[in-house]
């Protein structure tokens, strides 16, 4: 009777820039949570095996889901970066912005993924959708072989929040998944779905917890206080008030405790890791956050931690013992705080709630983090 935890990555997780796989840090973070909260042992399923691993029936199965391959293909094939970008972005980007994107490795390896997922509805987006749903359904099929009741938790980060929101809509359209209401918890870390998708697709049933035949039973949205990414278009950020026709339904879900927002703070790395200031947007940092870890641990265990249990675990103390950012109280942080305050206060031109302009803001947000990194290397 395994509990399934699907981890879905965000932007900049491709392998074209080299480095360790995106899931390395996340794996460490999950192991840290398991140990600290006394959860069932983790079975890391990467790739998903053919048969149920021996003795894994009572473990938590963690399934990292990758969909970056289509983006890597573009990067590898784009000999002339600027020319390739012009084809992708069309008239949406100025020449100066295209030059920035082509020149700066951080932007090229991160922001481009979002642009490709959004624009390439012919190949990159369906491929990503199929990769996510293949992993969810295959992990589930294997869990059924293990017997017993299965609990499913989906944790998506950054671009993964949009890719997963999109994928879950397709999953809900397949009869048995809609009938079972099969996703116990959907957690989005730095949600960008409302910027990349129409309102209806993000908020309407079956993704509305407690709504009509919901696929997703509960929903948690997490924002880090210094992460600009969930604030690209502040007037469209994920919130029940922005859910249009579904606003009342989301408000009810919040009243029932089925949906909610968690604001996190601080920057740490998993044990033996080294945190960077850009990790305000990091997957592992989100998982380990003081405000987030107990919630996720409760979901994995199957019952929320009581105040007494939380006092015993004393996660804030354990969190404080993790590798901390080297510049927590320096001018770098003050600058980032000030820059974030301005970023969040961005007002739409004309006072309306336009859908456009998110990519310019994504680049601005990424540049904000790059500037912070220069001050806090």
């Amino acid at each position, binding site marked *: 009777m395994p509990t399934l935890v699907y981890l879905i990555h965000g932007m900049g997780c491709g392998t074209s820039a080299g480095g360790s796989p995106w899931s390395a840090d996340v794996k460490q973070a999950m192991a840290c949570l398991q140990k600290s909260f006394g959860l069932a042992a983790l079975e890391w399923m990467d790739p998903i095996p*053919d048969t149920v691993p021996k003795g894994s029936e009572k473990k938590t199965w963690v399934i990292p889901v990758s969909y970056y*391959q289509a983006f890597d293909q573009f990067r590898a094939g784009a000999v002339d970066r600027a020319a390739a970008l012009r084809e*992708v972005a*069309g008239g949406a980007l100025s020449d100066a912005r295209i030059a920035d994107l082509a020149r700066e490795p951080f932007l090229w390896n991160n922001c481009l993924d979002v642009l490709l997922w959004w624009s390439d509805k*012919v190949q990159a987006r*369906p491929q990503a959708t199929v990769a996510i749903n293949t992993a969810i359904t295959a992990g589930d099929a294997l869990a059924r072989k293990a017997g017993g009741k299965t609990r499913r938790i989906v944790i998506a980060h950054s671009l993964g929040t949009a890719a997963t929101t999109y994928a879950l809509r397709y999953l809900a359209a397949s009869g048995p998944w809609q009938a079972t209401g099969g996703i116990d918890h959907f957690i989005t870390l730095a949600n960008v779905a409302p910027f990349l998708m129409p309102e209806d697709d993000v908020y309407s049933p079956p993704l509305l917890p407690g709504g009509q*035949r919901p696929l997703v039973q509960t929903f948690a949205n997490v924002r880090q206080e210094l992460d600009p990414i969930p604030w690209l278009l502040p007037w469209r950020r994920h919130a029940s008030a922005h859910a249009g026709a579904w606003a009342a339904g989301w408000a009810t879900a919040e009243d029932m405790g*089925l949906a909610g927002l968690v604001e996190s703070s601080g920057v740490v790395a998993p044990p033996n890791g080294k945190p960077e200031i850009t990790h305000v947007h990091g997957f592992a940092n989100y998982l380990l956050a003081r405000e987030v870890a107990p919630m996720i641990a409760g979901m994995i265990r199957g019952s929320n931690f*009581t105040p007494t249990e939380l006092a015993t675990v004393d996660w804030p103390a354990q969190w404080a013992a993790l590798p901390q950012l080297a510049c927590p109280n320096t001018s770098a942080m003050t600058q980032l705080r000030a820059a974030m305050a301005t970023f969040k206060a961005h007002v739409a031109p004309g006072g309306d709630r336009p859908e456009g302009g998110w990519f310019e803001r994504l680049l601005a947000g990424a540049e904000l983090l790059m500037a912070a990194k220069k001050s806090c290397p």
Partner: protein
Amino acid sequence: MTRYRVALRYAALPLSLPLVLPLALAARALSAQDTKAQAECTTYQPAYRATDPSALRAALKRAAWPTTEFDKLLVDSGPAATLRRVRARGLELMSHTLVDTAGIPTAWVAVDSVLQLVIAGVEQGSGATVRSTDIPDMGALRVVQPPFGSGLLIAGRRLAFQDADRVSSVAICAVASSAYALLEFLLKAELDRTAATYAAIGERWTLFASSAYSMTWVERLAASCRLWVVGYVLSPTSQCWRRHRQQWTLDELEPPRWRTVFAHPTAGFEPILKADSAYRTATLAEWYGILRLDYRGDAIRTWGLSVATAHFASDKYAAGGMLHTPVGRVGVFDGRGGRTIVMLSGDLLRWSPQARTALEGLKARNVGAIRRSLR
């Protein structure tokens, strides 16, 4: 000053202990019990205390069937009868446990009414096999743990786990969990089919990305085609012209079965077979064409036609067309003086080392294993 504060704190400690300690211990015991009771629900293993009456213990045991029993139960009785037995056992259990506190009866009524609806749906459905369309809303039987609230939710009702009604709450959970697990078991074949379908689509995408005729970004990006024909959305690919707004059907996720070729550059060579030269090369431009892609096992068979021109090193060009076949591409062009030029063509965009490296990376890591696991 600090020293006085510390002293004051230590002095107050013995005074407050008799008052605080019992309360803290009671709260701790209650919290632990609540958590344990919730865990019994969510892990589908209700426990029974030694002090519980034997009738209750027996009823709890009966109501909480382990999933290992499902196969036998279904063979013996069929799905509708098995579900009725779940309900009967639930009713029996509730007759032992129902207490009139904190909305317990209404929670049970909500669960029971969903259960009855499901049973009615299955009875009217397709007989021995249960399909998801037969079931009105089994999701309501799912035990939900609200991350931003207390207790558990079942059928839209909140269950707390206070000591007074703990057994009732666990009992309702056990019945709902048992029914839900059985229903999921009944839909196993359908769920497995969905998994197999996604795995197959994933394999077709891998095939498309690694073996199909390459696509330029102009061909690939749906939005770009709008630039070419004012007021009319011309499709470079099947996905583009099929629908502009998602219907969330699986066929929308399939790789293209039809696609157009538009302003597509490639290379060709003309076999000459003379003593001084074996072939002549040319740059080919396919201006417009249509391709049909058949996915057969591990291969794609492509058929299609396009209007094309061949451009030679001598700055001369010839107009003609390209025929795409499963074994290769042949161009036929109108040369000077009525001479027909026949050229063989490759897929230029696929020849670059970067593209080849990237295609290797595209091979979905999990798909093979998934396929095997579903067999």
